[in-house]
């Protein structure tokens, strides 16, 4: 791309003179196209650029607005700054146990080994983390982590991370296509299966189409939370990457595991679901029911008994003396805490607006709270009229993160489709059945970088045999994208369908599930799929959110169906999947993954049980000592 033109509206880089082939749309050629500009996408693009590839980043929002910007608590990395005893083995063990051993062990290992260097690298690019007394990067406590391990900047760590990566990407002069949505990943079928040939999207501002020709595509599109009613996730989280991967022929794993964060805001209604960072508990916040009891002591599972305080006295002691006291039960992994809160509310011991109380004011002084949790202070003050330095917060579970995602090779992040890579929340395996707080931001860095490298090398290797775009496929993608403007008998409002889906997922595929309700959910999803054929879209193609939503809805439905299908199949309770009709974990299920694929000729999702990759013997002793 020698001389590139600017988009008339946004100033984004574009090149209409490069219209090529028979399809007649704006077209670009790159070695690597990264879809997504959150932590994973930016880190992947930086790695690919460093490797010498021609790289483009494509994202739905403006640069710097991806979900990563909202992350609050911190980045987990065993740097040992706060506790010299910390090392990758302890972090690895915590991660696997937090995920109830269903994690891909190799991903968890790479993650624990490489995250410290990835964090220090951010500092190299300008990040300003909070410091310890010795001037090192400060590390804070979080649920499920044995040692204080989260590198952080107050409670706005994600902002620091995305800004640092964004500025690095700008310094490297990486091309960014912002407010541009990808609707299709193209593949070319040939010997030995199919391989990626490019991608198709539209500019949100103008509604015009854009075609990318590239042998490597990295999916870094984040999660699916917008399919739930109460969620900490934004409009972007419609599962696009999950759906693109399925349709391109890749498989998804662990889709039954959806993380409900224990503490979302519950009041006022307009902010229901907005996150209250786990740092509140890490920094001393206690959970109490309407009777004033710290109910978490009643919910300590056998599995974590040995490392959890069993009395208020011991828990209190821990804040000052971590060597001789065990951790408060408020800092159990998220799935445990979310279920406990859910039970308390159901038992009628909830707060006035249907949550429980989270109290930090009783333990910490106002100065400490404002310094450590500035944006929580601000958020409650501005949106709920609550001063958290004097009053408790009301909190309840909110859909937060999807553990499931594209099945990838642990070392290269390549999916089963040649040239299609995935990293970040859209990838599966790393977190098993439950993610520990702070392990996502580190995941983005570790696997984003690996995916970017692999994608660049794949492009170099195929330089002599580049895959070709098929004009008919491109035209079909364009026809598909404008179809909502001319549906015969269209009567359905996309916003209504989205709302109905959110209600149904919340009600039938939520925190606590039953076989009966899951079966019902699948029937309901089928009905919505039928209705979604008749979406109406008003207006024209220029910056039209109704049209954009109409194109997102099929993705949301596809991904929701995957979640419900896998949840119905897994007849046990583990991590982010709780079955009322199968309350305990089942060792047989503990050795299996569920993989979902799209059968194009049948037009349906297929589900397969497959054995979990087995951990090598030399790592097993890590799980034997304490239990």
């Amino acid at each position, binding site marked *: 791309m020698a001389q590139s033109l*600017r988009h008339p*509206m*946004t*100033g*984004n880089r574009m090149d209409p003179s490069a219209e090529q082939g028979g399809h007649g749309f704006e077209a670009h050629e790159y070695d690597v196209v990264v879809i997504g500009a959150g932590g994973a996408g930016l880190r992947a693009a930086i790695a690919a650029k460093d490797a010498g590839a021609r790289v483009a980043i494509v994202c739905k*929002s*403006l*640069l*710097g*607005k991806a*979900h990563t*910007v*909202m992350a609050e608590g911190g980045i987990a990395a065993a*740097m040992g*700054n706060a506790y010299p005893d910390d090392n990758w083995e302890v972090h690895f063990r915590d991660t696997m146990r937090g995920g109830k051993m269903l994690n891909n062990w190799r991903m968890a290992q790479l993650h624990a080994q490489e995250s410290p260097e990835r964090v220090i690298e951010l*500092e*190299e*690019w*300008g990040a*300003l*983390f*909070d*410091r310890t007394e010795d*001037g*090192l*990067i400060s590390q804070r406590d979080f649920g499920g982590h044995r040692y204080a391990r989260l590198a952080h*900047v107050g409670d*706005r760590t994600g*902002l*620091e991370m995305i*800004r640092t990566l964004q*500025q*690095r990407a*700008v310094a490297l002069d990486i091309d960014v296509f912002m407010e541009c949505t990808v609707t299709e990943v193209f593949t070319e079928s040939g010997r030995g299966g199919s391989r990626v040939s490019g991608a198709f999207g539209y500019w949100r*501002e103008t509604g015009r189409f854009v075609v990318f020709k590239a042998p490597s595509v990295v999916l870094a599109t984040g999660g699916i939370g917008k399919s739930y009613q109460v969620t900490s996730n*934004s*409009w972007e989280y419609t599962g696009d990457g999950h759906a693109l991967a399925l349709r391109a022929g890749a498989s998804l794993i662990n889709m039954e595991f959806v993380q409900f964060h224990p503490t979302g805001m519950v*009041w*006022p*209604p*307009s902010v229901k679901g*907005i*996150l209250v960072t786990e740092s509140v508990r890490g920094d001393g916040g206690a959970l109490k029911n309407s009777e004033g009891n710290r109910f978490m002591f009643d919910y300590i599972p056998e599995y974590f008994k040995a490392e959890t305080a069993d009395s208020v006295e011991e828990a209190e002691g821990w804040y000052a003396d971590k060597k001789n006291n065990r951790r408060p039960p408020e800092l159990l992994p998220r799935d445990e805490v979310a279920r406990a809160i859910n039970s308390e509310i159901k038992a009628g011991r909830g707060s006035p607006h249907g949550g429980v109380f989270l109290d930090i004011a009783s333990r910490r002084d106002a100065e400490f709270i404002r310094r450590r949790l500035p*944006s929580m202070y*601000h*958020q409650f003050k*501005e*949106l709920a009229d609550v001063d958290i330095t004097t009053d408790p917060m009301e909190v309840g579970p909110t859909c937060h993160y999807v553990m499931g995602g594209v099945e990838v090779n642990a070392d290269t992040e390549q999916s089963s489709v040649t040239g299609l890579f995935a990293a970040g929340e859209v990838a599966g395996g790393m977190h098993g059945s439950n993610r520990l707080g702070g392990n996502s931001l580190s995941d983005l860095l570790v696997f984003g970088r690996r995916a970017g490298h692999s994608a660049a090398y794949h492009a170099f290797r195929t330089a002599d045999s580049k895959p070709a775009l098929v004009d008919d496929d491109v035209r079909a993608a364009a026809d598909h994208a404008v179809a909502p403007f001319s549906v015969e008998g269209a009567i359905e*409002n996309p*916003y*209504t369908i989205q*709302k109905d889906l959110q209600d149904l997922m919340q009600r039938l595929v939520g925190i606590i599930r039953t076989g009966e309700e899951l079966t019902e959910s699948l029937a309901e999803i089928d009905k919505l799929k039928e209705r979604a054929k008749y979406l109406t*879209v008003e*207006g*024209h193609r*220029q*910056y*039209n*959110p*109704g049209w954009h939503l109409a194109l997102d809805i099929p993705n949301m439905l596809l991904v929701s169906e995957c979640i419900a299908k896998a949840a119905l199949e897994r007849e046990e309770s583990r991590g982010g999947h709780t079955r009322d009709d199968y309350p305990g974990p089942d060792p047989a299920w503990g050795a299996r993954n569920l993989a979902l694929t799209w059968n194009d000729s049948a037009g349906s999702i297929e589900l397969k049980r497959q054995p979990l990759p087995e951990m090598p013997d030399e790592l097993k002793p890590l799980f034997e000592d304490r239990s």
Partner: protein
Amino acid sequence: MGYDLNLRVWRGDSSGGELGDYTVEVEEGEVVLDAIHRLQATQTGDLAVRWNCKAGKCGSCSAEVNGRPRLMCMTRLADFDEAETITVTPMRSFPVIRDLVTDVSFNYEKAKQVPAFAPTPRDADGKRRMQQADVERGQEFRKCIECFLCQNTCHVVRDHEENKPAFAGPRLFLRYAELDMHPLDTNDRRKLSQEAAGLGMCNITKCCSEVCPENIKITDNAIIPMKERVADRKYDPLVWLGSKIRRRTDREEV
């Protein structure tokens, strides 16, 4: 306790537009963005608006509410009288794309001109050390969520399109100040201050600081210290000479 809100919203594109009058049902505790979303979901499916976090963290939902630059997600309806009509218009300093969405590419273009952070080498153990007190100044500037409300408000470019090429604006002054105050940065400080494009055009009215939703003291903590530094260095011939020589050696090393 819901009520019917009278909402006026600017609708149109680069070729022109007008204020549309709507009545929207709203609930207790809601913010302006909620009203806009309900309008979109029930009456105007194609109403263009940017948002992401709905919690004042991403800086997407900037607009003017009754003429005041605000984040729509942090502007509570309770702050207005129930009978009052709320008027929402796009940010004025940027060209309109459609409805409430404006072309903010100016800010991204200016960001490309900021020099990259260039740190000193790591300590022997592969880590870096900085004291909390030394990072705090930079941390204040890095709270910026890039809502561009300060850029929208600053009178140097508001209604003065002709100043845009020479003026980076308050958001970008923060970037230069942040590098300037970073304990490990090795960029030439004097050069940085002078290159903070258009710093001289700022006459410290503080309007930018007033609208900043992150309460960053843009004028007091970033702009004024930078102005002082430029002044100092310019007038002191010895410093001038010294930094000139250093700059050259720096270049040779690169």
